[in-house]
């Protein structure tokens, strides 16, 4: 019907990014356009119908009679796919990004057009990564996303933000070059870039050493984009250097990109067991090391950053199992966890906005000042730790189930250990922030946060809690769709 809306999800944020950049300095215009643009970004994925969109397409025919040029069967167009999974991921991204934009607009006296433009750029890039069925297009938008995320962190992070962004860009350059080299090797071997065409060309070619090199290179890129083991300190540094509302956006984007890239990897090289073994092994390491490091932090933002990284490891375990149940549970957990971690990040955002610090040694006794916030945060902690009836319970339970069905019960035990550790770490954060008496020295000044929750934050938190409970009580519509995606990955697109 209206598949014309599909490219709009990428093109509109891109145009908005340019326009907001030009509007920088005109305060009222930026405010109005920012809110309007976020409304459009939120609405478009809801109304777009499922289907494909081809850029620069030509009909696949043998000859074009008027030119007498024979064309191959290969589809030269850049193809965008849009189905339920894409819809869910793009909408989730738009929702979290809306909060980031609204919180900036409602809190700052002077709104920065450039900052909003970078948020728009990252929305466009992640939407394109989710929908693109073309491996080079995916790479281009991954690089744009890296630059946009680094720019956002530079804008809000101060000196620690510069350092985090420096590391992110340097290793992002390495990982990006690694992905591009993999693509170049595949292009040189098969001559196509469309993922469906590559899937067809690759079947039966998985012993070719050039292809195996390409697999390794693209897996290294995947590790960076999803913040798994060797890159976990870089990602967690980005999360903790950014303001927590931006960190919520960043971790949502990371999980969406993790799922999108992993689907591509599994579609192309799913039959290669060494690849899934590497994905699984590094994900397990990330889960445990992430949650151990979360427990050792003395700053709430860093604690949440490492928790987010370890939860990405949990998603990676599901996907790395390579079975139907595992992939479905992993995709499902990515969505659930992005919502739940955003909830926690936003509660900490409120503390950070009011107290200007999230260090545990300066916080304490905030329960009296902000009981509502404490209540919502404890719900968020229960959600992330996988307590029924919330959504993360449904997916974590299914991941553990999948590990046992796949014949790796030890991994199930490790997932449970990691979840317990996450719960302990988050409860420690809650205790030190809300329950423990504030023993800060007078010189540092006691922290006061209570002036009432601002409406934007409050409404967002309520919406997120409702989403968590809703998905937790009725998981099947989402899980069934994730399961059918997993089935498609394994059986053929």
């Amino acid at each position, binding site marked *: 019907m209206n598949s014309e809306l599909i490219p709009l999800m990428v093109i509109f944020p891109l145009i908005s990014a340019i326009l907001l950049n030009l509007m920088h300095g005109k305060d009222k215009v930026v405010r109005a356009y920012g809110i309007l643009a976020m409304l459009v970004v939120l609405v478009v994925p809801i109304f777009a119908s499922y289907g494909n969109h081809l850029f620069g397409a030509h009909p696949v025919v043998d000859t074009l009679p008027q*030119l*007498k*040029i*024979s064309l191959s069967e290969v589809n030269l167009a850049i193809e965008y796919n849009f189905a339920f999974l894409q819809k869910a991921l793009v909408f989730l991204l738009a929702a979290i990004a809306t909060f980031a934009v609204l919180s900036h607009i409602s809190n700052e006296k002077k709104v920065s057009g450039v900052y909003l433009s970078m948020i728009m750029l990252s929305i466009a890039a992640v939407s394109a990564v989710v929908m693109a069925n073309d491996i*080079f297009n995916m790479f*281009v938008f991954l*690089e*744009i996303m*890296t*630059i946009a995320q*680094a*720019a956002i962190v*530079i804008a809000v992070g101060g*000196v620690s933000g*510069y*350092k985090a*962004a*420096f590391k992110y*860009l*340097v290793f*992002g*350059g*390495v990982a*990006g*070059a690694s992905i*591009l*080299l993999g*693509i*170049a090797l595949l*292009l*040189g071997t098969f*001559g196509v*870039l469309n993922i469906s065409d590559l899937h067809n060309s690759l079947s039966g070619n998985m012993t070719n050493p050039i292809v195996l090199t390409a697999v390794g290179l693209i897996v290294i890129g995947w590790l960076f984009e999803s913040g798994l083991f060797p890159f976990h300190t870089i990602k967690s540094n980005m999360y903790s250097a950014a303001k927590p509302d931006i960190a919520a956006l960043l971790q949502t984007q990371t999980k969406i990109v993790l799922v999108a890239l992993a689907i591509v990897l599994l579609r192309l090289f799913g039959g290669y067991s060494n690849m899934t073994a590497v994905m699984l092994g590094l994900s397990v390491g990330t889960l445990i090391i992430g949650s151990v490091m979360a427990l050792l932090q003395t700053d709430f933002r860093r604690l949440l950053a490492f928790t987010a990284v370890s939860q990405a490891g949990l998603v990676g375990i599901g996907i790395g199992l390579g079975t139907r149940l595992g992939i479905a549970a992993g995709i499902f957990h990515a969505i659930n966890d992005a919502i739940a971690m955003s909830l926690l990040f936003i509660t900490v955002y409120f503390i950070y906005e009011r107290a200007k610090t999230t260090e545990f040694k300066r916080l304490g006794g905030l329960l009296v000042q902000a009981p509502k916030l404490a209540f919502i945060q404890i719900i968020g902690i229960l959600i992330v730790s996988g307590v029924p009836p919330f959504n993360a319970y449904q997916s974590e339970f299914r991941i553990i189930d999948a590990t046992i069905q796949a014949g790796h019960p030890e991994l199930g035990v490790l997932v449970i250990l990691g979840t317990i550790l996450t719960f302990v770490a988050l409860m420690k954060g809650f205790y030190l922030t809300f329950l423990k008496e504030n023993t800060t020295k007078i010189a540092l000044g006691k922290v006061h946060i209570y002036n009432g929750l601002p409406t934007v934050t409050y409404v967002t938190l309520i919406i997120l809690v409702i989403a968590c409970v809703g998905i937790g009580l009725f998981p099947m519509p989402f899980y069934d769709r994730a399961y059918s995606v997993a089935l498609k990955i394994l059986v053929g697109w």
Partner: protein
Amino acid sequence: MNGSEVQFWSFVTAALLMIIGIYAIIFMDNIIKKIIGVMLIGDGVNLVLITEGFKPGGIVPIISEKLYNQSPGIFQEFADQASYSLPFALVLTNIVIGASTLAVLLGITIKLYQHYNSLSVHEIFKEEKI
């Protein structure tokens, strides 16, 4: 050197560029040298792509209406001889991306230098104990 030798040494050069880049990123202390390393890796990958599109003794992959009118049967021959043009488009995109990454990285470098008065990684990351 004939065409395929050029192609071979071009690949070797690309590999060397990437190795030098990785060396710089890991071992060099100066952050500008690290940035140069990132750019060298990108250039190495670009060179791989260009070399893939190169065809020994090939012709430029542009076809004009005039050429077509002169000899209509030329297309099969053209397709056999022309070099592969898709990688060149990819390289162009990657150069643009590399340039923007470089700009942001150098901007960060200026800010870091203003704050720390040094470009050494040891100085800048001193607060994060090893």
